[in-house]
Structure formats: structure tokens, C-alpha cells
């Protein structure tokens, strides 16, 4: 029986090594691999939209409006005869661009505010926590509508709104970690050398709190993509004629009686992007949490 293969061994061999890097572990799960594939495709589309798109996404061709899929226009044209495929490619650029810039801003602001709240004087902590709590008490969409009403719709406003509503999440996460690290030996050791608060925060606390932020960001991206699409659908986000998945969806909604292609074409990328980023984020989170290693990744 020595040649018999124990199926358990096979299964064990297929599992990633427990000490493999968190990234490798995350991507070894089917969910993580699927998420990464979709995210990679969207990123490539966004980066190389200019090369990959068969047409200018803004070129109006009224003669061929609302056409179904054809050899010339693979997934048809919209109500102004613009090539839907090209608009989806460029829409990826808008969706990712808005998400990355706004989340990047929120991360930086949340990082600094959270560090100051966690390490700084207590009264400042009180003020910042009050700010975080009040921000998250506001319904996101209502706050977005209010700011857009004041500042007027546009990509800049959109980014500002998303960054503002995302700050509390990052700020709280950083603050909680900072509070935990504040009394740790190495921070007290730095203080014993007379390191000032700026040095302690920037050199010693900051590198130790960014890790979880990245996971939070990867899980925030789908939310932001949906928010951007939702506001653009309502005409409050990216201004036409710039292509956004939300505005493609809106055009499709108006043309629903004559063609369903456009609605599907606008909706499918949204669904896929949301799923892809969510799966990737969850796989990353599970991979970075050593306690979940053994359990497998659902």
C-alpha cells in the first residue's frame, strides 16, 4: 500500500504554504484569483483606454444611433451613435480615477487625523472623534446631494464628497491602532530618547498603521465606484459628455423601450467591478489575518 496516494496529502499539497506571503495566500484562493483577474482587466482598460478603444468615445454619429451589436460596433451604439465599447473603456478610467483619487485623499487625511487623534492631546482627540462620528452619522447620499447642490456637479465635487465621507472610516481605524501602539515599549523607548511627537508619529507610528488601511481601501473602492455611478446616473456626478458607467446606464434607461443592450452594457461592468474589488479585498483581508489561515478562505 506504500504506493497509494493519500487524498489528504494531495489536498494539503494544493494548499498554499502557511508561511507564504499574505498576498500569495490571498491570491491562491479561487475568490482572490477571480477578484484579481477582474481588477487587473479593469485597470488595464482604464490605463490603455486610448489604445484599446476602437472609436473616440465622444464622437457622435446620429445615423447609427442605438444600434445593436455589429462587426463595426461590438456592443452597439448609444442614443447619440457613440460606440458603447469605447465609452465603457473610458468609463473604467473615470470610475477608477475617481475612486483612486478620492480614496487616496481620504486615506492620507484619515491617516494624519487618526494619528493626531490617537497620539495627540485628549481635547484634540475629542474634537476629531466628534468630527468622525458626525460625518458618519450623515447619510452618505444625502450629504453628497447637499454638497453637490452647493458646489455644483462635476468630477472635482464628486471626489471631494467621496473623500469627505470616507475620512472617518480611515481616521477611526488609524486612531484605534495608534491608541494601541501609544503605550507600547518602543514608543516609550523613543520618548526616553526625547523623540518629539512629530518624529514619533511620522517615523515610528505611521509605518505601523498603514497595513490595514490598504485592505480597507480595497474594500472601499467598489462602494465608491457605485457611488460615482449612482451620482452620474442622476446627472450629479461626472458631467456629460465624459463617459461614466453611471451615465451609460442612464442613457440606456432612457432608451430601454428600443434597446436593452445599452442598459446591460452599462450595468455589467459595474457589477463585475464591484464583485472583483470586493472579492480581492476580502481575500486580502483573510490572507493578512494569520488566524484565518488554517480555516481556508471560504
Amino acid at each position: 500500500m506504500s504506493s497509494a496516494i493519500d487524498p489528504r496529502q494531495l489536498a494539503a499539497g494544493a494548499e498554499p504554504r502557511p508561511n507564504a506571503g499574505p498576498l500569495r495566500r490571498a491570491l491562491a484562493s479561487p475568490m482572490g484569483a477571480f477578484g484579481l483577474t477582474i481588477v487587473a482587466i479593469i485597470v488595464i482598460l482604464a490605463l490603455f483606454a486610448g489604445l484599446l478603444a476602437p472609436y473616440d468615445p465622444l464622437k457622435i454619429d446620429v445615423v447609427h444611433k442605438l444600434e445593436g451589436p455589429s462587426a463595426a460596433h461590438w456592443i452597439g451604439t448609444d442614443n447619440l451613435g457613440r460606440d458603447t465599447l469605447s465609452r465603457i473603456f473610458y468609463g473604467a478610467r473615470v470610475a477608477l480615477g475617481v475612486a483612486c483619487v478620492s480614496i487616496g485623499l481620504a486615506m492620507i487625511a484619515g491617516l494624519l487625523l487618526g494619528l493626531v487623534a490617537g497620539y495627540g492631546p485628549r481635547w484634540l482627540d475629542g474634537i476629531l472623534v466628534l468630527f468622525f462620528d458626525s460625518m458618519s452619522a450623515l447619510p452618505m447620499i444625502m450629504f453628497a446631494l447637499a454638497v453637490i447642490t452647493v458646489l455644483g456637479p462635476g468630477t472635482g465635487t464628486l471626489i471631494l464628497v467621496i473623500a469627505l465621507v470616507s475620512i472617518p472610516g480611515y481616521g477611526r481605524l488609524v486612531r484605534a491602532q495608534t491608541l494601541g501602539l501609544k503605550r507600547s515599549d518602543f514608543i516609550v523607548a523613543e520618548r526616553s530618547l526625547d523623540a518629539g511627537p512629530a518624529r514619533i508619529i511620522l517615523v515610528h507610528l505611521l509605518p505601523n498603521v498603514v497595513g490595514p488601511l490598504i485592505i480597507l481601501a480595497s474594500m472601499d473602492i467598489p462602494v465608491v465606484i457605485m457611488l460615482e455611478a449612482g451620482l452620474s446616473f442622476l446627472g450629479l456626478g461626472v458631467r456629460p459628455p465624459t463617459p461614466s458607467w453611471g451615465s451609460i446606464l442612464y442613457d440606456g434607461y432612457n432608451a430601454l423601450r428600443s434597446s436593452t443592450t445599452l442598459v446591460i452594457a452599462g450595468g455589467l461592468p459595474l457589477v463585475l467591478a464591484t464583485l472583483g474589488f470586493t472579492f480581492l479585498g476580502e481575500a486580502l483581508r483573510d490572507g493578512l489575518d494569520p488566524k484565518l489561515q488554517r480555516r481556508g478562505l471560504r
Partner: protein
Amino acid sequence: MNTLLGIANLSVSFPLSSGLLDMFSADREWHLRVLEDISLDLGQGETLGLVGESGSGKTTLARAVLGLVPRSAGTITFDGEAIAGRSDRAFRTMRRKAAMMFQDPVASLSPRRKVGALLVEPHIIHGEPLIDRAEAAARLLALVGLPAAFADRYPHELSGGQARRVGVARALALNPKMVLADEPTAGLDVSVQGEILNLMARLKGEFGLSYIVVTHNLALIRHVSDRLAIMYLGRLVEVGATADIFRMPRHPYTRALLEAEPIPDPRRRRASLAIEGEIPSILNRPVGCEFHTRCAVARDRCRGQAPEFTRYAPGCAVRCHYPLE
């Protein structure tokens, strides 16, 4: 002998809560009194052992000396200068001339920085000129017997003994006058303990250091310290020359502590004054002498009246109504 560090009537207490109740309560009842009325001197070139059970306040005292824990009362004089106030600024000069070694050698090194960067950090913080960082780091590593290649390692890549050496090197970076060593041998195996102690002794000779060594390891302290300070529940109970205290402890607690040390001889009997139970909660200090709940020779007076810290010879004092003869 010149006094390097003078601590007088030092107390540390923390508010128990910062809620509404505080406004209505008497001041001291809602404070956690961690250190009470500590007076202690450290001479130039002297090694002082700070001994006591877990929770007796040894580490807090060491930290309060450097202002890492704010003092609520008392004065600290270092190198002829009184520390005015509790701010970081007030302790700036002192933190340059006095360094601390922490109990957990690995955890006290910033995890995302390389050893080389950690070693030159004191220079950077205090604005000391530093021509060649790599060379300065290598010099400090050589001082504690580590190869220069360690500068490129991260703290988690060090063993306990290596991290301890890095801690020593870091403490010595700015040629301090005093080093506060918190359990310098904790977590090290015996051979490495010996190496670290020899290293500390050699550096003391080379740099004319004064040490405060915080420990509960009596065998260790007996060999390294000139004087001992015994702490119980945040108070000093006995201070004296190490040899005298080991020969004839005067406080029943000191005696019990010394007798609790294992004797490597199975035929010798365990002694009479062994204490039982746990150290009382600092939230609920016993009335009178704080040790009376566990003291083998406590009398009625001990339960009612707190003893004073009484000097009986220069540099020797005991807090007991009935010191042992």
C-alpha cells in the same frame, strides 16, 4: 561620593476616571497612587538595585525619573540641576544624559526601522553632528560586540540577546552619565545573562556610568549593585548597602524576599518569615503599615499607624515600627 540623581518625595498617581463623579469626590480617593513619597539618591558611578515584587512600582519609578510617567509631586535633581515641571521639554537635557534599557528588548525597538537607523537616532534627535551614519552605527555595534552587518537587520530578525545588545548600544549612543536598566536580563538564557552583565560592567568602567537596575532577580542584584532599594506597594521600605542588606535585612519584607530566593541545597530548611498571599491591590491600600497584612511579625501598632521611613545610618533607612535586629 557626588550625588548624580536626587529624588525627593516623588509621587505618581493617575486619576481613576475622568467622568462626572470626579467633580464631587474628594481629590485623592479617586486616584490610583502608584508611587508614594519616594526619596532616593544615586551617587556618581554607583549601581543601585531597585527590587520588589511585580506591581511594586519599580518600573514606574524608573520611568518617572525620565519623565515618561508624569509625577504628581516631588522633585528630581539630575547632575546638579533640578527638573522644573513635567513637560518633555523639562526632561530634554536629562534624557540626553540618561538612557533607559527596557524590559522587553525586542519590543522596545521600533519594528519597521533597521538597527542602523535606530542606533543613530539619538544623535539625530539631539542634533548631534554625525558625519557618517554607517560608521557611527558600526562603532556602536562594535562597542557591544556585534558585527557591523547587524545595522541592516530589522528588530524581529534579532535574538533576545542581540536585541538586548542593540538596546545597550542605543542607550550608550550619546555617552550618558546614567543608565536605567529595567530587568536587563529578563528573557535571556543564563549564559547570555552573564554576557550582558559583563558587558554592562565593562561599559560602566569605560564610561564611568551610574546604573539603576530594576529587577526581581536577587541573585543578579547581589552581584552587580552597590546599594539596594526595596519597594513594596509603591513605597520604599528599605534602602541600604547591598552587602549589609543581604547580611542583615531590617524590614520583615526584605527578609522574606531574600528568603524566598531558592537555595541550591536541599538539606537547608526554608525560613521562618515566608510571606503568603498576593501583594494587596493598590486600589485598596492596607491601613497602617502597608505590609502588615502579610507580615509575620506585625503587631497592633502596625495595623493602625503607618511607620516613617527612618534613617539609622548614612544611606540606610527602613520603614518599619519594629525593624529586625
